[in-house]
Structures are given as structure tokens and as C-alpha cells.
């Protein structure tokens, strides 16, 4: 099995939830247990991909995801596609200069670099901010006010840094492969923050929407119907790995390479997660081109 890389770029707020919570927000987004960093579970992505591919090619769907219904053991086989969770790579945060800043941290970049190495991509060395109140920005950054990066209510000392510029260019090339303007926009607004600050922002700078439900008879809010939903903001960037094996379908064997060729490549528009009816969950799924 050979790992392949994918990125998700959210075009609208994204709510991949975990159901009702007993915590701070009524409907929180999914997070990794150990890090509390936002994730999009592989199962969410897999379901949407199945729907998308199944609408165009039922045979390919069977090979990739297995049969939809299993009547007996003889008709059962495993799908050839394994989709991993998508992890937060860069999150847009309100900035005093430049409107917003795509923030990440050395902790995230180390894991990202490891996964990129697995698929044969080289990455720059990871720079670390000088201290816990210090950020690194690309040489072309538009987020600096003199030497300060103001994010939400946080004033961080910041330094222009060539390695950070290289990282911004590396990520921008992967998420905006044919869009020079998109790349420039990302590079100018990128920053590497200390791990602690990124962790704090990933919990407090996600988007909260207050929802209500109207009683149709009275035109007023239904009793108790006021709740908070959490979303990953639009313009968030996530990454993950997927893998293809040779198909397990009896009598219709296809190699992993053949299946990879049949998958949509480049950029695909998908709707992920909940609240689709109120405009949430529009994402770009970016997969690497497969060499012929």
C-alpha cells in the first residue's frame, strides 16, 4: 500500500461535528483527543467521496469502497481505498494588518513534513520562534505592524524569516497549484507561531455561530431553541493521507495504479460535514496528480 497526499481547503465555514457536547459549545467540531487540534475524520471524507464517485461510476465505487449492501460472506470484499483523518495545517486568524493571517506552528509542521517525506516530497527546515511570545513571518509578509504581529487580541513580537518564506511557498504551491494570485495571497499572510499560542487559537479562534429556531405559529424563538455551533473558518487548510491497494473485488481485479488513474485528480469541489442547508462545508479537495 502506497501513501498519497491530500489537502482540504475550506471555502465556507466547515462543521464536522461530534454531536451534542456537554462542554462549552453545544455542537463542537471534531478534534484529535491528545492535541485538541481540529480534524476532519477520514470517515466524513470517505462517505462524501463514495457519494461523489458512485454518482459517476458505480464499478469504480464498488472497487474503492466495497459493496453497498452485503447479503452474504461470498459477496463481501474490502474496498481498496483507505482515507485518513485530515489534520489542521494552517488556520486563518483575524489580523490587524493584512485582514487575516494563516497560522501554523512547529509542532504541526513536523508532522506535516513527516507525511510529505512519506510521499516523496522534500520540505524546508522547520524554524522555531525565538520565544513563547514571538512569531515568524515570511519576508513578504503584509501582517506586520513594525515588528509586531497582532492576531485577535494577541500582540506578538515577529521577525521576517527566509525559512518561513520557503514554508509558505511550499504549502501555497500545494494548495493553489495553478493560481499565482492564490499563492501570493497565502505567502503574504502566513506565520509560524509558538505551539502554545497556536493551540490556544485553535480552541478560541474557531468560528462560533449562534443558531435559533423560530416557532412557525408565534414567529418567536422556540422554547429553549438557542444554541452555539462551532466551525472551522473559511480558508482553513488541512492535510491528510490516503492509500490505495489493488482491488479485492473477485473477478474484477484492478491494480492500485489503475484505480489511482480513475480517481479525480487535481482539485474537486465537495460538501463536507453538517449544516449544508445553511451554506456550510464547501471545500476543495486537492490530490496530487498521478503520473501516467
Amino acid at each position, binding site marked *: 500500500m502506497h501513501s498519497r497526499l491530500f489537502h482540504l481547503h475550506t471555502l465556507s465555514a466547515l462543521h464536522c461535528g461530534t454531536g451534542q457536547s456537554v*462542554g462549552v459549545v453545544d455542537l463542537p467540531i471534531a478534534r484529535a483527543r491528545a492535541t485538541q487540534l481540529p480534524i476532519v475524520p477520514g470517515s466524513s471524507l470517505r462517505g462524501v467521496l463514495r457519494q461523489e464517485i458512485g454518482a459517476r461510476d458505480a464499478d469504480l465505487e464498488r472497487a474503492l469502497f466495497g459493496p453497498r449492501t452485503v447479503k452474504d460472506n461470498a459477496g463481501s470484499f474490502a474496498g481498496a481505498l483507505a482515507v485518513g483523518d485530515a489534520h489542521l495545517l494552517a488556520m486563518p486568524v483575524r489580523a490587524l494588518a493584512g485582514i487575516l493571517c494563516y497560522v501554523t506552528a512547529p509542532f504541526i509542521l513536523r508532522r506535516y513534513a513527516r507525511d510529505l517525506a512519506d510521499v516523496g516530497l522534500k520540505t524546508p527546515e522547520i524554524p522555531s520562534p525565538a520565544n513563547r511570545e514571538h512569531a515568524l513571518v515570511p519576508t513578504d509578509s503584509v501582517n506586520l505592524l513594525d515588528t509586531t504581529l497582532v492576531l485577535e487580541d*494577541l500582540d506578538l513580537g515577529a521577525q521576517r524569516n527566509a525559512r518561513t518564506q520557503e514554508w509558505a511557498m511550499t504549502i501555497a504551491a500545494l494548495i493553489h497549484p495553478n493560481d499565482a494570485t492564490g499563492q501570493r495571497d497565502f505567502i503574504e499572510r502566513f506565520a509560524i507561531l509558538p505551539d502554545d499560542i497556536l493551540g490556544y487559537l485553535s480552541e478560541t479562534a474557531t468560528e462560533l455561530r449562534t443558531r435559533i429556531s423560530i416557532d412557525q405559529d408565534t414567529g418567536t424563538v422556540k*422554547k*429553549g431553541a438557542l444554541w452555539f455551533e462551532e466551525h472551522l473558518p473559511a480558508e482553513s487548510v488541512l492535510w491528510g493521507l490516503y492509500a490505495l491497494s489493488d482491488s479485492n473485488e473477485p473477478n474484477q481485479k484492478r491494480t492500485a495504479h489503475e484505480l489511482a488513474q480513475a480517481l479525480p485528480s487535481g482539485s474537486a469541489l465537495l460538501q463536507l460535514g453538517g449544516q449544508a442547508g445553511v451554506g456550510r462545508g464547501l471545500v476543495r479537495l486537492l490530490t496530487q496528480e498521478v503520473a501516467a
Partner: protein
Amino acid sequence: MKMRAHQVATAAYACVEARKDEPNKKKYGAIAHKLPGMILQNGLAQATGFLLAKGAGAPEHLMLLDDLKEVLRAGGTLTVTSGEALHREIIGADLAKTLKLTRAALEASGWIKRYVQGVLRVTATGDTSNGEEN
């Protein structure tokens, strides 16, 4: 040894239960529901400043600020003795302390909100629930 979450929960339970017979317990409950979201959306200083400002005309805001202070004390986050002192502590905090206070306040306000639902039976809109709503 007791888990920190249990210490915080015990204090939140006691604070909310003590509001059971307050005439404005519904208003207290409605604002308690909003507090965690208020902290997340506006920041801790803004949220506690709002409670302090509104408290002059609507005492349930000060009641909630006082309960937040009490729960934070029980969790060992700080040792202040009034809601106003809590707000002063927050606006005087450096970056590292702000991160810590925010996380602790989110945890404390989450527990207060939960007990408002479970003990006072007040919903987010300030209505009383029969226990069937969320």
C-alpha cells in the same frame, strides 16, 4: 487526591444550587448559557467586563461574575475575593497568564452552564425546562 474537574464541578454545583431560590434565576440561567460563547467570541476580558458593566442595572450579571470567580478559586486558578478583583486580575494578566485564565474560565463557565440546565432547569432562552430539552 481529587481530580481538578471534580473540584471545579463541586464548586459550580454549589454556586448554581445557591441560586435556586433567587427571583431572577431565569435571567441568571440565560446569561450563564451565553457566557462560554461570549468568552470564545469576545475574549475573557471583554466577557467579564461586560458582566461588570451590565451588573449595575441587572444584578444577575454580577451574580454570575461572582460565581465564575468562586469556581476559578476552587480550581486553584487564582485567589481573588470578588468579581471585580477577578476582572482586574484578567486585564492585568500577561500573555501566558491570559491563556491559562481563558482555558480555566471556559472550563468553569461550561460547568456553570451545565448545572444551570441540570439543577435550575433553565434553558438558553431563559425558559424553564422539564428536562427534555438539551
